């Protein structure tokens, strides 16, 4: 509730500031009408897509990866002639991994850059900070990796009309992890150690718990930590004494890296599992490749997936960036194609027409899976389970919804 109120306050502040910006823009418009005519002439042969991303700050590795993926897609589309002969221009704005800055960036993209569609921030909290702006200015907004259910669906059950996503939602990852634990690993007594400061981790923990209990398992320990903690030894010792045969750790790599390391130092040998929040090279540096053995993550895609189109994408990406694409790269890439597909079907750059086309997307084949958009604006698609072997992610299996 308190969160909502502050959000509203932010929104009203930004509304006020955007009014001022609008008024200023109107003033300058009166002074020089010739320049205004010029810009509208320019915009007819360029389609501007905004990208409101975490390019610095605590989750910079997510945002910049999505940006790189999106750039590759834009290059490919432009090289193939663009959308109806119009080139795409990607306008990137840094939201510094901060909620207030994310709102700021969305206002900037909507009012100053006048983008046709936006790529929303990488983490769910930052996306939620931009949804009001998207609805207000009627700009279709697609997040590549914001997996919390309340990104597209509000608490009262209403849908954020202009907000979409390319990734699957949190509860699905929790269910996949629970099924993997019982069916593949035969786990019976599990522990959950979740980041209490993020909606993402709490959502995953809840759906994991529900599914594992439905599968006949017991949760023997349920613990929590707060982002930015560095010492997890005492809670891990407590978990160890409960003797679980599987530990689910939804959270982000900055803390998870330390948790995995400290758990192995304390002699916890059980398999550990997390979700896409683990997916960062920094995780391997923090935890060490040895400690990461016998850990699993659910993810959107694997660069080792033998599928032909995926290998084509991997080659193109490696040619441009000299590194193997991770899931965020792939999701950023897919997000651009998702928007492109909708603009082509809408045959217009009008916000409402694109919104309608996005909602009607069906059987669109992309790198991270073939998907259709459901009535809650969530894609229905498959998930991949990866295993860490000596610091490398290895493709384990693919799970359908």
């Amino acid at each position, binding site marked *: 509730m308190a969160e909502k109120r502050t959000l509203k306050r932010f929104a009203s502040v930004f509304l006020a500031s955007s009014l001022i910006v609008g008024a200023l823009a109107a003033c300058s418009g009166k002074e020089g009408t010739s320049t205004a005519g010029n810009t509208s002439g320019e915009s007819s042969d360029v389609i501007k897509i905004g990208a409101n991303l975490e390019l610095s700050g605590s989750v910079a590795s997510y945002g910049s990866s999505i940006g790189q993926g999106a750039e590759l897609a834009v290059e490919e589309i432009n090289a193939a002639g663009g959308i109806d002969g119009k080139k795409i221009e990607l306008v990137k704005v840094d939201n510094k991994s901060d909620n207030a800055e994310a709102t700021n960036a969305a206002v900037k993209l909507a009012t100053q850059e006048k983008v046709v569609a936006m790529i929303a921030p990488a983490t769910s909290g930052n996306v939620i900070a931009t949804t009001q702006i998207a609805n207000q200015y009627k700009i279709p907004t697609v997040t590549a990796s914001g997996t919390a259910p309340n990104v597209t669906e509000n608490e009262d059950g209403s849908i954020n009309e202009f907000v979409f996503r390319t990734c699957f939602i949190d509860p699905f990852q929790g269910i996949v992890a629970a099924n993997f634990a019982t069916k593949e690993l035969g786990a019976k007594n599990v522990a959950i150690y979740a980041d209490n400061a993020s909606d993402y981790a709490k959502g995953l923990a809840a759906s994991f718990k529900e599914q594992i209990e439905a599968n006949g398992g017991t949760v023997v320990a349920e613990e929590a*930590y707060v982002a930015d903690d560095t010492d997890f030894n005492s809670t891990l010792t407590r978990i160890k004494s409960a003797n679980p045969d599987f530990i689910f750790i939804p959270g982000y790599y900055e803390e998870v890296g330390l948790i995995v390391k400290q758990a192995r130092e304390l002699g916890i040998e059980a398999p550990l599992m997390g979700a896409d929040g683990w997916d960062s090279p920094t995780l391997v540096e923090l935890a060490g490749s040895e400690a990461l053995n016998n850990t699993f993550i659910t993810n959107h895609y694997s660069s080792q997936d033998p599928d032909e189109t995926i290998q084509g994408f991997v080659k193109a990406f490696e040619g441009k960036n000299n590194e193997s694409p991770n899931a965020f790269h792939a999701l950023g890439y897919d997000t651009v194609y998702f928007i492109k597909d909708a603009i082509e079907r809408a045959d217009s750059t009008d916000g409402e027409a694109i919104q309608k086309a996005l909602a009607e997307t069906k059987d669109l084949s992309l790198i991270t899976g073939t998907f259709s958009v459901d009535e809650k604006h969530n894609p229905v698609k498959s998930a991949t389970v990866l295993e860490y072997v000596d610091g490398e992610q290895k493709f384990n299996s693919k799970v359908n919804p």
Partner: protein
Amino acid sequence: MEWIQQLVNGISVGSIYALIALGYTMVYGIIKLINFAHGDVFMLGAFIGFFAITRWDVGFLPALIISMVLCAIIGVIIERVAYKRLRSATRIAALITAIGVSFLIEYTMIFFRGPGLETYPEVLPNTSIDVFGVSVSSKSILILIVTIILMILLQFIVHKTKIGKAMRAVSLDADAARLMGINVDNTISATFAIGSALAGAAGVIFGAYYTRIEPLMGVLPGLKAFIAAVLGGIGNIPGAMVGGLVLGVVETVVSAFGFSLWRDAAAFIILILILILKPSGLFGKNTREKV
């Protein structure tokens, strides 16, 4: 067995708090200033150690010494530039300056290298040793040994050397000490140097133990160490050591009972309780302030 393990965990955290708390308590003892920039000297120490290890390829002990020396110099510079001219100003002016210096260090660091994290390389042997069913990592034993050596060294400096004698004299009565021919300015600088060197050492130890370092890492440990210093009686050196260890163990016990989300709150509740019930701390002398 679980409880012995938890005690080991608590002492590991506590010894880092204790090392930082020593700097707080020494500076307070000598010029009655709570040096809030101390937590950031700790951060600088961690980064200096990191650069020493990754760029110059040195081991843990040389990195520790390099970091201590550079932090001592930084501490003296902070004192000479920011605090010296405020020595006759009100205490609140000096306190606000200390907070300003703290922000200056944090954001200068972010300006030059960004807010991202850095990963400490493995510099210490990492094997688990089983002692009566308790697995203790060789790292935490080594860190405990280094901490104890540094504390013994500090006790030796304060009680057996000339500069230590001068420090004790200045903290008792700066004017009388000056009349006795003690160079008060140099003594205060020496106090800052020693306190900052300990913070630098704590930084390298923290990095080697917890792996993750970042420009704002000093804020929370700094506050915790401040609590430890108050708990032990601010201005009292053995009090800071005991206060740090007690705080570490209390935090661990709170987590061990399953209230991990209350861990930080517990530390601050201790601060409030101490300030209400026994403001002079566990070991502080109960003297009224002279007017």
